[in-house]
């Protein structure tokens, strides 16, 4: 089941389409959290996620008047955010940086509860695999849809998901968390 987007009242959407600033602010208040969370989880960096949040809502404000309602507005806005995240994932800068843009990795965190361990493990999954696992497991996208979004095949999405699960398993089960994100080697197709 895909993670549901917050429901935007039709009346708010109508006012937003007409250009009412207050309605735009309501839309932001409803969806900024889910969009920021999505971006933060996909990119493992708060500063990049903040950029994506800002760029997404600028795009929303510029185009809400032309939104025809062929999908839920929350789904439409998340789709914009996903495309922006994938642009970051594809950029060479993101693939060259460390496992997380802002969180200390490994033993610095001390004793962790399950949720924190999962968050930390997710941050250490390679960029593309992390984006795939989030889109598939949380946002409910199919492999075909993910392949299309990334300009790749369905089997590419499947293999990235398997890789992400395997990596998460290793990170959650193993006592030592090693940072292997920087070992991304295109020759070996590990990224």
């Amino acid at each position, binding site marked *: 089941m895909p*993670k549901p987007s917050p429901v935007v009242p039709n009346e708010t959407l109508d006012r937003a389409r007409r250009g009412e*600033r207050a309605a735009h*602010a309501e839309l*932001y208040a409803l969806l*900024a*959290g*889910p*969009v*920021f*969370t999505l971006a*933060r*989880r996909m990119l493992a960096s*708060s500063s990049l996620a*903040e950029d994506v*949040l*800002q760029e997404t*809502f*600028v*795009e929303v*404000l*510029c*185009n*809400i008047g*032309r*939104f*025809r309602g*062929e999908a839920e507005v929350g789904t*439409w806005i998340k*789709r*914009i955010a996903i*495309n922006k995240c994938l642009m970051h994932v594809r950029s060479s800068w993101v693939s060259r940086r460390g496992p997380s843009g802002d969180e200390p990795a490994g033993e610095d965190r001390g004793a962790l509860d*399950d*949720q924190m*361990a*999962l*968050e930390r493990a*997710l941050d250490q999954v390679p960029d593309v695999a992390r984006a795939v*696992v*989030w889109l598939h*497991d*949380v946002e409910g996208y199919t492999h075909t849809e993910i392949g*299309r*979004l990334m*300009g790749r095949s369905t089997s590419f999405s499947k293999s990235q998901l398997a890789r992400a*699960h395997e990596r*998460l*398993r290793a990170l*959650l*089960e193993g006592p030592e968390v090693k940072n292997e994100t920087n070992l991304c080697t295109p020759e070996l197709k590990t990224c």
Partner: protein
Amino acid sequence: MHARTEDLLKLRELPELAPPRGVWERVLEAERVRAATRRFRRRALATAAAVVVAAIPLVYVTTLQSPRPPTLHVGVPQPVRMPGEGTSYAPLVAESARLERLLAELPAPRPLMVGSAVGTVVGLEDRIALVDAQLSYAAARDFAPPYREALWGERVELMNALLYVRFAQTQGF
């Protein structure tokens, strides 16, 4: 299976994160700047178009009134010259033509496109139209090559961006 492996299934239960403060204010500011830029481009395009339209009769009358130089007809066919051929910006002209061809070969856009994609395509087409109007004006007034080179460079960049967006649409983005 290790007990903690079950945590894999709990990705959806990770808490929602609070967005940082101040982003909404930056969104409003960026949107205001973007709208102002778009308005400026539209006005500039309209002005450039008006200048070109106004210049056409003038150029026509001037051409009619000028004594025509005698022409020499020889049997050798004249080669077709691309705009800017033999100039510093000829490669940019050729690249622009190549991108035009690639764009023409793409399948027609779907009738229902995502709003953001429509906005991007319209924005890029507006900017290309503006550059085209400036190029026409520069050609009519015989502006210096560096100025035209900059315009052709901008056109190639915009065409590249448009091609990328249109290609992404064909892939279902």
